[in-house]
C-alpha cells in the first residue's frame, strides 16, 4: 500500500539521520581522544617504558575525565536549551536565560574572592557556582510567578524573561563589585578564565554530579514528550487536549536549571552550545519532542567535545578557553540558521 511504503521510507530516513548524528559523535570523540597531544598515540605501545608511562598518563588519565566532561557539559547545556526553547516557545531561549550564568558567576567569584576551602572532593568555586545558579533560577521563577491573566500555567513568559534579564544585570553588578573591592589582584584574571568557560578543571567528581543532572533531565524530557508536542499548537489548545501546562512548565524549568547549573559549576560559562545544538538537530529531526531531547544531547556533546579539541590544538602549547571557540564558530552558524529560517 502507498501509505505503508511512505511510512517505511520515512522511518528509513529517520534511522539514517540518527546514524549520521551518532556517527559524527563517535568520530569527533575518537579524534578528540587521540589527536593534538604532545606525544603520539602510538607511544602507548612503544618499547620504551618511559614513553609508555607518559602516553598512558595523557591518554588514559588526563584525557578521559576531560572528554567525559565535554560530553556531559555539552549534552546538559543542549538538553536544557531544548527544554527551555520548548517551554518559552521561543527560538532564542537558552540555558542561561533564568539568571543562571550571572548567579553562577557570582557564586564562583565569592568562593574565589574569599578563598573558601574546598568541601570534600568538590572545589568551593564549583559548589558556590552551582548554588548561585540554582538560587538565581529559583528567584527569577518566584518573582515571575502569578502574573497570568488569561493564559495558562503559573507564569507569564515575557515577564519571566524580563525578570531573568534584570536579575542577571543585578547579579553581574554584584560580581563586579566583589572583584573591584577584592585585595587579590589576581582575582580578575581567575574570574576571566571562569567567565570564558573551559574544561581544564574537569574532575571525575563533578562529572558524577553532571551525569546525575543529565540523567534526571533527560528522563524528564522524555517523559514530557507527549505534552511538549501538544503545546506546539498553543497553550489553550494543549490544555483542551488534557495537558497540565503549569505542571509541565515547572517540571521542565526545574530540570533545565539543574542541568545548566551543573554544567556551569563544572566548566564555567560556555556560550552558544545550549542555543545552537537544539537548532542544529532540529534541521535533522524537526520539532518532535520525542527525538529532540536525545538528539540535542548528542549534538551538544559532539559540538563541545569538538570545540574543546580545537581549543587545545589551534595554538599549542597555548590552550584557548573553549568558550571563545564555541562563540567564534557558533555565532556565524547561528546567523546562517537565523537567516535561513
Amino acid at each position: 500500500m502507498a501509505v505503508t511504503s511512505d511510512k517505511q521510507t520515512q522511518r528509513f530516513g529517520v534511522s539514517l539521520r540518527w546514524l549520521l548524528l551518532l556517527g559524527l559523535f563517535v568520530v569527533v570523540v575518537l579524534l578528540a581522544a587521540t589527536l593534538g597531544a604532545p606525544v603520539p598515540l602510538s607511544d602507548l605501545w612503544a618499547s620504551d617504558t618511559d614513553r609508555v608511562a607518559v602516553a598512558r598518563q595523557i591518554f588514559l588519565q588526563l584525557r578521559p575525565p576531560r572528554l567525559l566532561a565535554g560530553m556531559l557539559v555539552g549534552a546538559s547545556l543542549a538538553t536544557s536549551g531544548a527544554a527551555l526553547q520548548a517551554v518559552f516557545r521561543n527560538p532564542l531561549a537558552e540555558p542561561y536565560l533564568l539568571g543562571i550564568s550571572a548567579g553562577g558567576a557570582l557564586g564562583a567569584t565569592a568562593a574565589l574572592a574569599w578563598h573558601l576551602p574546598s568541601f570534600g572532593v568538590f572545589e568551593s568555586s564549583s559548589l558556590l557556582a552551582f548554588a548561585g545558579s540554582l538560587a538565581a533560577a529559583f528567584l527569577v521563577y518566584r518573582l515571575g510567578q502569578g502574573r497570568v491573566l488569561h493564559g495558562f500555567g503559573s507564569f507569564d513568559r515575557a515577564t519571566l524573561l524580563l525578570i531573568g534579564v534584570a536579575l542577571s544585570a543585578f547579579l553581574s553588578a554584584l560580581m563586579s563589585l566583589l572583584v573591584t573591592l577584592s585585595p587579590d589582584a589576581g582575582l580578575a584574571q581567575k574570574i576571566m578564565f571562569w567567565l570564558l568557560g573551559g574544561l581544564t578543571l574537569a574532575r571525575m567528581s563533578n562529572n558524577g554530579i553532571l551525569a546525575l543532572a543529565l540523567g534526571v533531565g533527560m528522563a524528564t524530557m522524555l517523559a514530557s514528550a507527549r505534552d511538549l508536542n501538544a503545546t506546539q499548537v498553543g497553550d489553550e489548545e494543549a490544555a483542551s487536549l488534557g495537558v497540565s501546562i503549569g505542571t509541565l512548565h515547572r517540571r521542565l524549568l526545574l530540570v533545565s536549571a539543574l542541568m545548566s547549573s551543573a554544567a556551569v559549576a563544572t566548566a564555567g560559562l560556555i556560550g552558544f552550545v545550549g542555543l545552537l545544538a537544539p537548532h542544529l538537530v532540529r534541521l535533522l529531526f524537526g520539532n518532535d519532542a520525542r527525538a529532540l531531547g536525545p538528539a540535542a544531547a548528542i549534538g551538544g556533546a559532539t559540538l563541545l567535545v569538538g570545540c574543546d579539541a580545537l581549543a587545545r590544538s589551534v595554538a599549542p602549547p597555548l590552550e584557548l578557553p573553549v568558550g571563545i571557540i564555541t562563540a567564534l564558530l557558533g555565532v556565524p552558524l547561528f546567523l546562517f540558521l537565523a537567516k535561513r529560517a
Partner: protein
Amino acid sequence: MLKIEALTAGYSSVPVLHDFSLEVAPGEVAAIIGPNGCGKSTLLRCVTGLLKPQAGSITLEGQNIWQMEPRQRAQCVALLPQSFEGGHDLPVETMVMLGRTPYLPPYGAPTRQDQGIVDNALKAVNAETMRTRRVGELSGGERQRVMLARALAQQPRVLLLDEPTSHLDIRYQHEILSLAWQLAQAEQLAVVLVLHQINLAAAVADKLVLLAEGGFIRATGSVEQVITEENLEMVYGVPLRVVPHPRTGRPQAQSLWDFKAEVGPGQPRDPMPPLL
C-alpha cells in the same frame, strides 16, 4: 447527557456569563447565538475545563467535569477552537494524532490502534488525501475539517465548536456544519455550536440558546421558540423579520436594515413598513 446548570463565569469578579443552563443529549446539536461579547466563547472554555466557573455546575452523565483529571476530561470533551495559535508546520496526520494526546503514555508513542483511530477520523471528515500536507498550507475549509478530525480522534462524548464557520465561504460553512450534524448522529455526540449566523444556527440546531449582551439568556428552547422577531430585535438591535424557510419551514431571519438611509454609525432606525 451534558448538563450545564446555573453557570456563572468570567475573568474577574464581574462575570461575563450569568446563570446559564442547558442540557444536550447524545446525538443532539445545540447552538448558542448572540452578539459579540455575550459570553459564548467563555461558555465553551468552561465546558472544556480551561476556565473555572464562578458558580454553577457542568456535568457529563452525572459526573462533574471540573472534578475530572485534565486527561480524563480531554477524553470526554473535545473543542474545535476558533483560531489557531501554532502548529502551522505540522503535517495533517501529526495534527490529528495530537487528538490522541489524552490517551498516549508520557513519551507519546502512538500504537497501531491510535493510528487506526486517526485514519478513521481523517476518513470521517473526508481528509485522507491531505495526510502529508502541512496544516499551514490548507485552505480555511480544509483546515476546519482537519481540526474536526483531531477532535474526533479524542473520541469524545461532547464536541464543542467555537464559531466553526467564521472565515469560511458559504459552501464550506454548510459543509462543516453538516459534518458536525452527521457526526452527532453517527457517533452519538452531544454537540454545542457557537455561531454568529442566525440562519445557519436555525437550520442545523435541534435546540437554541440566544444570549443577550452582558451574558444573560434571552431565550432558550426549540428553534421556533427562540427565533422570533421580538427576541432577535431585542438582542441585536437590528430591524428583522422572521419567515419560514421555503423548503424546510424552519424560521429564518431577514434583515430590514435600510443601508441607504442616513443614520448614524450603528444606529438602527425604526423598522421599515411591511413590504406588502
